[in-house]
């Protein structure tokens, strides 16, 4: 596939040209962190970031999305009838996504795009989006991508892999869409042998810096109910304050709520990020709640990622090791430790 070298000073030119035909999202400085934003100028993209605080899932699965609109006006012939609303679902490029975050899209595809039923908005945005990944040369201490089946230079969910080198970037097309994006770019030059080997050594160094902390494969063999009843959940759940930070920041947490909102006589049906950490998530109208206890909710999150998803789809785990939940959990519940307990299935006091 097409592989080009782009000098550092020419990258904004390349991105700018692509901005003419597509909406380009990239990591930009946001307060004391980074966030994926729609670029209005190519030089706003900042590829020195380690990772964004919020995962780029918001680009495909917005935190609050209008699904339908309707009128509640008495006598309106369309009173009470829901209709789709126009959305910007045209071509988009996400430039500089980390390979782990891109992998997360693939994992979530399995939920939203099935043989029987397809989530139209997830699918359309996915189809319209070209992913230019930024290889992760210096993974953080909270990263554990290699333990969950991906890696700092995993190209399997990308259209283009970009590797930062001393003088510029190596851009390797991975798919046809990636190839089309790079084809004929005047900013690029064919990559020389030494450029390619420089990129290889950057990737190898990064991969080596990430030891495998646990091996999730044996979880497939463990009976679901046995893991469910394991004694360690009691210990794992104690510190949790059910704040939902982990689920909101997680690139593979897709759960959502559906709500109606009315302003005067116009209404909308919305979908909103939701969290299995919240008691309301499972509260029945009758008042019964199958996950009324904190332990049940904490267990649900980890079991979903490392057992239910794996068993249901023969894929996963539903975690890409981005480390956001580890970094931002206000009480230091560490998914790496929990996954370790699940795979070892023992109570392991530290």
């Amino acid at each position: 596939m097409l592989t080009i070298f782009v000098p550092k000073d020419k990258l904004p030119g390349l991105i700018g040209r692509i901005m003419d035909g597509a909406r380009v999202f990239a990591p930009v400085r946001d307060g004391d962190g980074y966030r994926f934003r729609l670029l209005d100028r190519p030089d706003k993209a900042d590829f020195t970031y380690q990772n964004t605080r919020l995962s780029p899932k918001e680009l495909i699965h917005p935190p609050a999305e209008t699904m339908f609109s309707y009128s509640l006006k008495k006598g309106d012939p369309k009173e009470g009838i829901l209709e789709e609303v126009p959305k910007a679902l045209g071509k988009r490029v996400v430039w500089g996504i980390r390979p782990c975050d891109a992998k997360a899209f693939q994992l979530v595809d399995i939920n939203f795009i099935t043989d029987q039923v397809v989530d139209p908005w997830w699918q359309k945005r996915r189809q319209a989006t070209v992913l230019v990944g930024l290889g992760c040369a210096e993974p953080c201490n909270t990263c554990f991508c290699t333990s969950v089946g991906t890696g700092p230079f995993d190209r399997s969910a990308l259209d283009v892999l970009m590797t930062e080198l001393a003088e510029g970037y190596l851009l390797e097309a991975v798919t046809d869409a990636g190839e089309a994006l790079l084809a004929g770019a005047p900013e690029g030059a064919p990559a020389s042998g030494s450029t390619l080997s420089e990129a290889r050594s950057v990737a190898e160094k990064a991969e080596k810096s990430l030891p495998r902390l646990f091996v999730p494969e044996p979880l497939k063999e463990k009976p679901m109910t046995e893991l469910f009843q394991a004694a360690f959940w009691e210990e794992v759940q104690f510190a949790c304050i059910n704040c939902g930070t982990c689920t909101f920041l997680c690139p593979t947490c897709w759960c959502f709520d559906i709500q109606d909102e009315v302003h005067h006589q116009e209404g909308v049906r919305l979908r909103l990020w939701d969290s299995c950490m919240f008691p309301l998530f499972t509260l029945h109208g009758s008042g019964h709640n199958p996950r009324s206890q904190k332990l049940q909710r904490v267990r649900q999150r980890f079991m979903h990622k490392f057992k239910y998803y794996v068993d249901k789809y023969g894929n996963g785990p539903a975690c890409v090791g981005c480390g956001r939940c580890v970094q931002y959990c206000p009480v230091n519940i560490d998914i790496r430790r929990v996954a370790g307990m699940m795979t070892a299935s023992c109570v392991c006091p530290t």
Partner: protein
Amino acid sequence: MHAYTEKIREAAQRLLADKKVDGVIGFRQGTIPMMSEPVFIRHADQVHQLTWNGFCGVNLANYLVKRKDRVAVVAKGCDSRNIVLQLQENQIRRDQLYILGAPCHGMVDRRKVWAFLKGRDPLQATEDGDSLRVSGRDFEEVVDRQAFLQDNCRICTHRNPVIYDELLGDPVPEQAGVDRYEDVRRVEAMGSEERWRYFEDLIASCIRCYACRNACPMCYCPTCFVDESRPQWVGKTLDPTDTRTFHLLRAIHMAGRCTDCGACERACPMGIAVRQFTKKLEKDIKELYGYEAGVVPEGRPPLDTYRPDDPQDFIK
């Protein structure tokens, strides 16, 4: 090892052995730099997990609400004030608690350290008296710990527990000459439009995850107003009106109850300075009633009692 660590372990051992408590709530070593994890110790053979350091910022009072058992809890000044409030609000009984008071030197704000490191990844952080040593793959920095404390710790005037069964160390000198409300006065001095914009900008990145609410030891309503559907007080989207409503109502619910423990700000994944809302209320309560929440166990808080000479200045 911090001197308190030994003391905490010794006390835990003793209290468990004497069956004075069913468990001990404290901290254990965190898995990442500058973090410690709250832990519940039930058995003598787990006591060695207990630890203490300047990264124990989590307010352990959050784990006490509506408990049925008897527990020992390690409490900093702010934690102890929240315990006082929980006792006043009947969320737990005094005879269920054995409070291990931890006179506090302030807790490190890891976000400040991150900002200082400008993207360099900290792999280890240790404390040595007044200094904080942070090291990574190819760097080591030794900094003045005081400069990296949580904002609320820097202006804290109740570092010593206000209620306890035993102290883990000698009381520390309270910070003198602290200006608690410098930032509030700055906001008060703004014109209404500027002030409006200030708060709009402040909460612009809010994702409505409610981590601030859940981290707060005083937020324990069985159904939070944001979760109520009949009637639905507040919309659930990121619409600025709804986000604003959430933050304002959360703050108002904290009036006269907030101890400025900083748990909300510490928990916010988006780094929003949510204390900007509660601090103004704290200042008002202090000015109107001369009252600081959770400092004195006796008596009732001003907002749940009536006196004929109550200030009327809020009606203008």
